[in-house]
């Protein structure tokens, strides 16, 4: 390793691990690759890379939120309930009467006292929760969702601003209700998607399987949907339309994917803005009318998609990163 600066070896290794060596440097690296010192540096660089990547990653984990969830699941209430289930009904009644005095102070700790929970997702965030009746709810970016910690036997009612997909646990006796500003969706057990964003002019309900009934906010019957049907209600005019849709497009976001089938760029950018937490501007008359087909994965960064857009549709995408506000993407005709 004579004549080679230690720092130079290190820098080459950094570049190597980041896959950034140019042709000349690649040759230079080949020459020193066999040395013990190079191997050691290489190992250290890799280790630093993985360790820093891991440390960036765990910053993204909301531990408290997850602990709350775990704690709720393992709370004494559940254990007491499970325990009681094993006894006959009468023994249970007797035991409850006996335990109430002892347990009440413990059960109603501040944590379990809140009956209504509220989740607010920022743009760029997605989430999934399981409600007390087993109903699964996927929440899309920028959604506000309210639900009770436990449902009683009279109603299962939640409130939504934004978009969510529901897989409702079947219960003949107690319908499941989703309240939005524009209407109420009632079901007994089914899978459907509701989009009720504040800045969208329409409330849309897309049925994936089962049956749903939609009522106006005042409780008047509006429509019953069959699978693959989509109901749109205009918030302002109240006008309603039902159309057949490809449910893949509406259910795809829960898999972290958007399936596009000749989707207009102007519609697509609204989704992209929510997903990637960016502002997108379309510059030029016809840019919004460009029809795009394909699949976008949310796990991937936006950049490759923008590059494909540039190549296939002859537009120019410009990314502006800001420190104090959302990144901005300007898409214009070339």
């Amino acid at each position, binding site marked *: 390793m004579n004549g080679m600066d230690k*720092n130079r070896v*290190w*820098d080459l290794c*950094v*570049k190597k691990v*980041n*896959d*950034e060596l140019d042709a000349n440097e690649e040759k230079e690296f080949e020459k020193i690759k066999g040395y013990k010192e190079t191997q050691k540096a290489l*190992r*250290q*660089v*890799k*280790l*630093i*890379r993985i*360790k*820093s*990547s*891991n*440390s*960036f*990653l*765990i*910053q*993204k*984990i909301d*531990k408290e939120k*997850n*602990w709350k*969830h*775990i*704690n709720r*699941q*393992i709370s004494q209430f559940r254990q007491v309930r499970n325990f009681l289930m094993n006894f006959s009904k009468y023994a249970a009644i007797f035991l409850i009467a006996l335990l109430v005095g002892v347990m009440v102070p413990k059960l109603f700790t501040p944590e379990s006292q809140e009956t209504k929970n509220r989740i607010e997702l920022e743009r760029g965030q*997605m*989430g*999934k929760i399981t409600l007390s009746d087993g109903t699964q709810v996927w929440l899309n970016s920028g959604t506000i969702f309210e639900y009770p910690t436990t449902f009683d036997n009279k109603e299962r009612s939640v409130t939504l601003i934004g978009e969510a997909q529901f897989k409702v646990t079947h219960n003949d006796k107690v319908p499941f209700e989703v309240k939005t500003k524009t209407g109420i969706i009632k079901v007994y057990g089914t899978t459907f998607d509701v989009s009720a964003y504040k800045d969208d002019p329409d409330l849309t309900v897309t049925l994936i399987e089962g049956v749903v009934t939609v009522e106006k906010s005042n409780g008047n019957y509006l429509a019953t949907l069959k699978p693959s049907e989509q109901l749109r209600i205009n918030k302002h005019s109240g006008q309603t339309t039902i159309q057949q849709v490809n449910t893949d497009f509406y259910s795809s976001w*829960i*898999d*972290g994917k958007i399936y596009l089938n000749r989707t207009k760029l102007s519609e697509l950018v609204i989704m992209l803005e929510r997903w990637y937490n960016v502002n997108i501007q379309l510059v030029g008359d016809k840019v919004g009318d460009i029809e795009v087909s394909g699949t976008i994965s949310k*796990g991937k*960064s936006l*950049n490759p998609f923008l590059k494909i857009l540039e190549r296939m549709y002859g537009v120019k995408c410009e*990314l502006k*990163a800001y420190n104090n506000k959302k990144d901005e993407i300007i898409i214009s005709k070339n």
Partner: protein
Amino acid sequence: MEEWNWDNIKSGDKQAFRLLFDDYYSPLCQYANSLINNLELSQDIVSDCFIRIWERKESIQIKSSLKYYLLVSVRNAIYTYLQSPESRKVDINTVVERLENIAVDEYNLEKEETIRRVYRLIEELPNQQKKILELAVFRGKTYKEIAEILEISVNTVNTQMCRAYRFLRERLNRNELLLWFFFKKN
């Protein structure tokens, strides 16, 4: 490894369980994420593991080590997840390949505190270096992409990366954080 803690957990000590959670929840999420590449889902899976461990704590026998037990629990939960209809969310072939490539007993599960120490060192870096490092190692951006995003030259990205790595090597070494070399494959 505080194996003593396990006895407390077994006897129903939630405080002890919280300590276990504090030490290993995030690292296990990171482990799951390295397999399924979906952090949201990783958190759900690891949370479920913790819930199940608590529910079955009395009957759990820790044979080798608690760390090993936790890793195996998470790995099994991922296998179970792959069999569920929901598994559309991940690329099953890649996950299975990774599961088979990384043996649990060779995986170095660190405590959260150890991982956080690295982050604290990163925070000492000048802002730009930190940003560049994050874009490169965490977001997987190329130097050219970073240069475009931050409106600086590729050369600057390179210089700053080398500096950041040198700083981290020196500080990690001083804190004895570069001692383990657990790379099996390149």
